């Protein structure tokens, strides 16, 4: 028999390129696939069991062979059997799934952080070193990467199937996901939450690179200003340093070293200062007044873009001493604008 060469080539290409399972390109992928195969197995067993029962009984008790039906009430023993065995299997699946969930959603503490801002219909990646990417993400292999993500408009969802990770990107709230890529290559980024007209165009590529290549890429694609430096400029131009000057008589709390600490609020509650808290405190200051300070800070809702907030958060995060704030203050007073860098998207 003769097979058309075009068809043959097509089949070979298909079998090589997209088998029935996606590539395993992260440390999580084998764990996710293990549970998937377990689930496939119990589905197959269940299906075969139901098939054997239905077809077996249908053949054995078809009317031509079994003209008389024997009435049976039921059987408590059998009912118990098919209650307990599925229940036990489902509970195993529950525990296994929960363990996997915590593995996927609890980032290791040494993960490097990259910010993702989603908007209709593109992904912006902002590296702390000042590399900005659109619909692309470069990451090193062998190193945990945490994504801190936020949406500027509607719900999006950041999915990398080959890494088996996905999380909703929510307006007004940071969400995180992490992965550790294992194989260099390029992989799909999909927005999986329906987000309007060009939902299916909100895709991109994640490029996993060896540490050497990654270092080279980092060097070549920096915009010249790190996120913290952008944040510093914003900090000055919004006039934040007027109150948060770090001096003893300042009207706003000292921000140096505040990140990661526990803060006492006037409402009496104690909060952990993390990315989300900093963002909220800038947008809704009246609800986050540090104990001992007056609620005089105005809201910055609608005045700073999500990218700008990322810059500010990154700046405050890295603020170890008040030296930078004082310097900024001097710069502001000396009327010298910070140098602009070509190619940087102004917040």
């Amino acid at each position: 028999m003769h097979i058309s060469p075009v068809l043959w080539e097509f089949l070979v290409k298909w079998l090589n390129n997209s088998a029935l399972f996606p590539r395993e390109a992260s440390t999580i992928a084998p764990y996710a696939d293990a549970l998937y195969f377990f689930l496939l197995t119990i589905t197959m067993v269940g299906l075969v069991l139901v098939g054997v029962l239905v077809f077996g009984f249908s053949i054995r008790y078809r009317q031509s062979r079994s003209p008389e039906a024997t009435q049976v009430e039921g059987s408590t023993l059998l009912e118990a059997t098919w209650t307990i065995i599925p229940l036990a299997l489902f509970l195993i699946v529950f525990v296994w799934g929960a363990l996997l969930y915590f593995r996927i959603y609890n980032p290791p503490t040494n993960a490097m952080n990259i910010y993702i801002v989603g908007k209709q219909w593109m992904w912006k990646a902002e590296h702390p070193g000042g590399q900005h990417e659109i619909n692309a993400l470069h990451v090193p292999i062998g190193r945990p990467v945490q994504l801190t993500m936020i949406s500027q408009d509607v719900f999006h969802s950041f999915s990398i199937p080959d890494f088996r990770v996905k999380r909703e990107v929510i307006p007004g709230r940071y969400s995180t996901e992490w992965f550790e890529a294992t194989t260099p290559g390029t992989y799909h980024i999909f927005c999986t939450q329906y987000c309007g007209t060009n939902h299916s165009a909100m895709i991109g590529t994640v490029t996993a690179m060896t540490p050497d290549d990654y270092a080279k890429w980092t060097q070549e694609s920096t915009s010249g200003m790190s996120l913290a430096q952008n944040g510093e400029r914003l900090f000055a131009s919004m006039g934040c340093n007027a109150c948060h000057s770090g001096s003893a008589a300042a009207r706003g709390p000292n921000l140096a070293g505040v990140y990661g600490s526990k803060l006492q609020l006037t409402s009496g509650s104690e909060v952990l200062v993390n990315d989300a808290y900093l963002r909220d405190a800038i947008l809704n200051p009246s609800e986050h007044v540090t104990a001992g300070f007056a609620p005089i800070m105005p809201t910055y809702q609608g005045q700073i873009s999500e990218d700008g907030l990322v810059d500010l958060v990154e700046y405050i995060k890295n603020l170890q001493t008040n030296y930078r704030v004082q310097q900024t203050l001097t710069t502001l007073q000396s009327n010298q604008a910070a140098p602009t860098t070509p190619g940087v998207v102004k917040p």
Partner: protein
Amino acid sequence: MSATSSTIVNLPDQRTARLPKRNYINNEDGLLSWLFTGDHKRIAILYLISITFFFFVGGAFAGLIRLELLTPQPDLVASDTYNKFFSMHGIIMVFLFLVPSVPATLGNFLMPIMLGARDLAFPKVNLLSWYLYWLGGLVILGAMVMGGVDTGWTFTTPLSTHYLNTHVVTAAMGVFILGFSSIFTGLNFIVTIHRMRAPGMTWFRMPLFVWSHYAASILMVLGTPVLAITLVLVALERLVGIGVFDPTKGGDPLLFQHLFWFYSHPAVYIMILPGMGVISEVISTFSRKRVFGYTAVAFSSVAIALFGFFVWAHHMFIMGVSNYSALVFSLLTMLVAVPSAIKIFNWAFTLQKGSITFETPMMYAFGFLGLFTIGGMTGVFLGALGMDIHLTETYFIVAHFHFVMVGGMLMAFLAGIHFWWPKMTGRMYPESLSKLAAVTTFIGFNLTFLPQFILGYLGMPRRYHAYPPEFQVLNVLSTAGATVLGVGYMLPLLYLGWSLKYGAIAGNNPWQATGLEWQIQSPPLTENFVEIPVIDYEAYDYEWLAHKTANEVTTVG
């Protein structure tokens, strides 16, 4: 009666059967007699015609979606148009077909007869429910004609409230009105089951069809108001910007999802439970054997209804809900899977020691068993927290709920329509042609949706107008399957229509089933029973039926 004993039931000679002179169809003439009827059977027929119309409208959209996805490029229609296609497909299929499908047609027709009553408790409310159905349906069709809506059937905020300029409020209004139609049906069923049972019809003598409708009715009455509230909030947010779902005004966009799924997860059980009732009747009848573990099947319906209310957040595992609440919802999801497994095994064991024949309803029921098992098990995939992360929002979930809703519910609906067609119309459908349709549907369905499981695990997201070229082969298979499926659904429409005039006369009880509805003439009288029957036997009592037939033969002979 002993627990085990033998029964032989032979099909009656249909050649001698005659259509009864007076029945609910010819009792009154003229269109108005139908439009102003209070007869539950006539309303059921009105509903049947209506949902069939909407099914084919929704099906046309499904066809267009599959046609667009034949190629990776977005080349058939524009993205906005494609988004409107899947939104309309979802809204029409869920709210205008699946939710009312079995309850409003078969349920309406059979519930009072099965209970030995002359009508539902509130016949006028029943008719009002049909008018509201059409009002809601027309509003949705209006939204479609004016330019459509592209929110998806989920109306997710803030997309639906702030970022779309299509007819969101109109469509939401349509669904809001449909909600009342659904509540009225549920309310009517609950009251009828409590108050209108014939003497001797105790709770545990009721057919399982009634039990499953009872469970579904509770869900309709308790769940639908939450959907109505949610849609009103969406409309208010759009029109006056009250900010309940708007983070910049202190609202929470996730709240919408909580409210929406609080209805829409139980809604899945509203859709599937009545179908399960049909399957119990069909499998029992064609194996001439009582349903194995009657009480287990009855209580598993109630358990599904109960647990069904406490699993909604499993739609939100990746949305940043607290890890611990995710744990609780995952555990409850595993628990709700158990009653479905119990039902499957009870149906399988109903066949044991039966005397089985393979008429069309039975073929559809077998299709249901296989497809629902796959649909249910893949639900366990999605209920497992870590697995859900990779699978949710992909074609895996599309395949999963189509296996449950189309493979499960639609198979059950078609099983029921064929099974009770002789009762509803007095005529038989053509047997071999309908078997062909059942097999075509089964093959077409699997060809359409099995590739989508693979696509989903590969990572293809749902609601994508364009997709990477490596997914094309599986999408072509799926579209080919949809074509076969389309043929499978057109066939019944044609031959059932044909059978209305040319079908063989059915007679009272062509299947020799035990149900009360089979002991009266087909089609039934408007008042169902000349005398309210006294029930002194359990459901699925084939011995009683055998004796009854024997007695009749002796008296007549």
